[in-house]
């Protein structure tokens, strides 16, 4: 018979901790060894005693929920680096979350707010339409004469300048090409030179101011004539004027949108020049046809 099993082997056998071969060998030995079998029975009874004695220690209830709360709170405490920031974020979250909760009163409130917003949008659109580019240009044109203060020097220059033929050779582009306007032989046409101009409410594009002044002056000239135009001429004049104004408005808004595009500015100046030409034509016609 083989040597009897040691206490650690017997314990491991009892606890099921022996590997396959050692377990088989131990079982084989126990089957034929009374001493070891008696030791195993003693071990079993002691283990039972130990287990039942320690059972109350490990059977007492575990406060799982309280432990979880405590540990979560402690972990939250670990995570909080700047408590104030977290509080403010959570406060904002709570506030936003509370906004999303619909109660009957809040629903009425939101509906009222929606109506007010709708009215505000309609009003804004109406206001914007009334301030459309055409109106803006007209506003500019209407305001410009107020700002014009003719200087005597310019009036003198205008009287010196007197060839109607030059008018036809007018080139329509830059402000420096505004000479045809000066050829207005009407002494009443004041052309500004270094005028004291208050800043208009409407922001002017570079080079635009001189055109506006010229147009205002021509407008004054035309309006100063007491005579009324022939109805057909008047209608055509107004139609052409509206057409040119629309062109100015369109090109002006394009130039404003693309401040770095020289072509856009050129188109605008061309439109202005067309208006200047139209006004010049009308002014010339009225001056030449003036009854003596």
């Amino acid at each position, binding site marked *: 018979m083989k040597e009897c099993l*040691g*206490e*650690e*082997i*017997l*314990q*491991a056998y009892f*606890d099921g*901790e022996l590997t*396959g*071969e050692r377990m088989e060998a131990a079982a084989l030995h126990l089957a034929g060894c009374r001493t070891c079998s008696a030791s195993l029975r003693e*071990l079993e009874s*002691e*283990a039972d*005693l*130990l*287990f039942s*004695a*320690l059972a*109350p*220690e*490990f059977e*007492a209830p*575990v*406060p*799982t929920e*309280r*432990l*979880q709360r*405590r*540990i979560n709170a*402690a*972990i939250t405490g*670990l995570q909080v680096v700047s408590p104030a920031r977290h509080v403010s974020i959570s406060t904002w979250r709570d506030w936003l979350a509370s906004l999303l909760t619909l109660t009957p009163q809040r629903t009425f409130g939101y509906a009222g707010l929606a109506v007010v917003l709708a009215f505000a949008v309609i009003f804004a659109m109406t206001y914007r339409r009334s301030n459309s580019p055409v109106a803006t240009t007209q506003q500019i044109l209407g305001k410009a004469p107020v700002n014009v203060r003719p200087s005597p020097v310019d009036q003198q220059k205008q009287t010196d300048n007197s060839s109607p033929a030059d008018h036809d050779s007018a080139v329509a582009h830059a402000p420096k090409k505004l000479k045809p306007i000066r050829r207005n032989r009407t002494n009443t046409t004041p052309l500004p030179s270094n005028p004291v101009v208050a800043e208009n409410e409407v922001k002017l594009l570079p080079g635009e101011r001189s055109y506006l002044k010229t147009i205002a002056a021509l407008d004054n000239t035309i309006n100063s004539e007491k005579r009324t135009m022939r109805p057909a001429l008047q209608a055509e004049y107004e139609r052409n004027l509206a057409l040119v104004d629309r062109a100015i408005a369109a090109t002006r808004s394009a130039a404003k949108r693309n401040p770095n595009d020289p072509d856009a500015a050129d188109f605008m100046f061309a439109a202005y020049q067309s208006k200047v030409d139209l006004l010049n034509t009308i002014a010339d016609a009225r001056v030449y046809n003036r009854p003596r």
Partner: protein
Amino acid sequence: MNGQASAFVDSMPNEIATAATPLSFDEAFTLHHRAVFRTARSVVRDSGLAEDVTQEVFLRLYRNLDSTPGEELLRAWLLRVTLNVARNTLRGQSRSIARDSEYQKKTDEAWFASAPEEDYERRVALEEARVALDKIKEPMRSCLLLKQQGLSYREIATALCLKETNVGSLIARGRKEFARVYGKIGGRR
């Protein structure tokens, strides 16, 4: 049969054989908080202190979640930390325990007097078991406590920093010692 079993084990994927999959913190808490709390209470002998110990153990787990062992040995790691924290707590508490021993005695007497008979017997048995357990030296005592909770020899060796081959012997000696002392105290053999 044996050859078949080893062939089956060899055919298993490595990840299953090693079982080193890390657990999430919540999973670890759900699986092991009872073992941690009970082990702590078996050392500090007070539910409130055991809660403190459990909280500290899981905070340490939270801080070291990346460096803790996988699922297979996580319980052993947790219980090792538990035993250390619980012993430290006891050392810190020793003065106050000595100071409050008189008060504790009165409280225990009051509790014993008011408890139902069944609870009273249970309480007496628990106290006797604790006294017997206190007579057993370390690491045998811890071996018995961990074995009681179903830990394997490998886990016990990991938790107590022992050689796995020594665990069986320690349990056997501890069990014998406990039976002797407990028999003397309660005469229950």
